[in-house]
């Protein structure tokens, strides 16, 4: 069965691209925090819990917000929208913050709100809470971007009717270095709203590589 990438978002080199349209650009990024706060305000997301998230969750959350902005995910049966994300640094960015807070025994004040983000799959939880998504989910860790692994995992979910569609992507962040590509993969294109600048791509490893490199 042919599967399609019906929408995508890209974050990298100061650019944010949604379905081939550049929506945000910062030539010089001082910090990831400033970058993502500016984007959050521009997009008028209005979700106060955003500020409490760690950096990795902010990146994944905003990426999903932009991906789903004009999508009606209510068209999928309950529990049939899956999420499969991957990266190489897992939650190391937040793990280091937590480690710093427990390093000094005489000033031992670990933060509960930091600790809850010391797992990469919390990113998926934040997206699911916001959008009421209850489908299959997984967060994979691999040394490098591995489109073959993602392709195989997501294809298996869709081919075996474990999901009708899947939000899938690479969400990598460590310090102020980050890159993300998130796609919506569907079995067919019948319900996806048309995008003026983006024609759905066949869901292949090549397409994934194209989206992460060519934007």
């Amino acid at each position, binding site marked *: 069965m042919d599967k399609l990438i019906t929408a995508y978002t890209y974050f990298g080199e100061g650019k944010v691209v949604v379905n081939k349209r550049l929506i945000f650009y910062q030539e010089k990024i001082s910090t990831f925090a400033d970058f993502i*706060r500016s984007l959050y305000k521009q997009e008028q997301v209005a979700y*106060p819990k955003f*500020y*409490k998230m760690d950096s990795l969750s902010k990146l994944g959350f905003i990426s999903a917000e932009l991906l789903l902005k004009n999508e009606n995910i209510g068209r999928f049966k309950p529990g049939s929208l899956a999420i499969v994300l991957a990266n190489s640094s897992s939650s190391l960015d937040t793990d280091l913050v937590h480690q710093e807070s427990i390093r000094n025994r005489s000033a031992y*004040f*670990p*933060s*509960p*709100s930091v600790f*809850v983000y010391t797992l990469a799959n919390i990113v998926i939880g934040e997206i699911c809470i916001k959008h009421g998504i209850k489908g299959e989910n997984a967060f994979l860790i691999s040394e490098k971007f591995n489109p073959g692994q993602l392709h195989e995992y997501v294809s298996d979910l869709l081919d075996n009717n474990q999901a009708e569609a899947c939000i899938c992507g690479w969400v990598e962040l460590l310090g102020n270095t980050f890159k993300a590509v998130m796609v919506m993969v569907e079995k067919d294109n019948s319900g996806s709203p048309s995008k003026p600048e983006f024609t759905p791509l066949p869901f292949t490893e090549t397409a994934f590589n194209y989206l992460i490199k060519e934007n």
Partner: protein
Amino acid sequence: MDELIEKLKKEVITQLNLEDISVDDINPDAPLFGEGLGLDSIDALELIVLLEKNYGIKIEDPKDGKKIFYSIRTMAEFITEHQKKA
């Protein structure tokens, strides 16, 4: 007391990352949980850490938390009372 209330408001905003909220937005008598600032259970734990880190106060019985963290004013009263005893 008023000075401590203002200080606490700033500390709560910082500790809980309430970036869209200013000191003037916080009514010292409004409930911190449920309504008001809409804080959650992780925020409650952060407030316990705040008291320990900034004021050296350890809450021994978690059941006391409900009363102490009802509002900014009840927090301030608890701190003042604790400092008098010390």
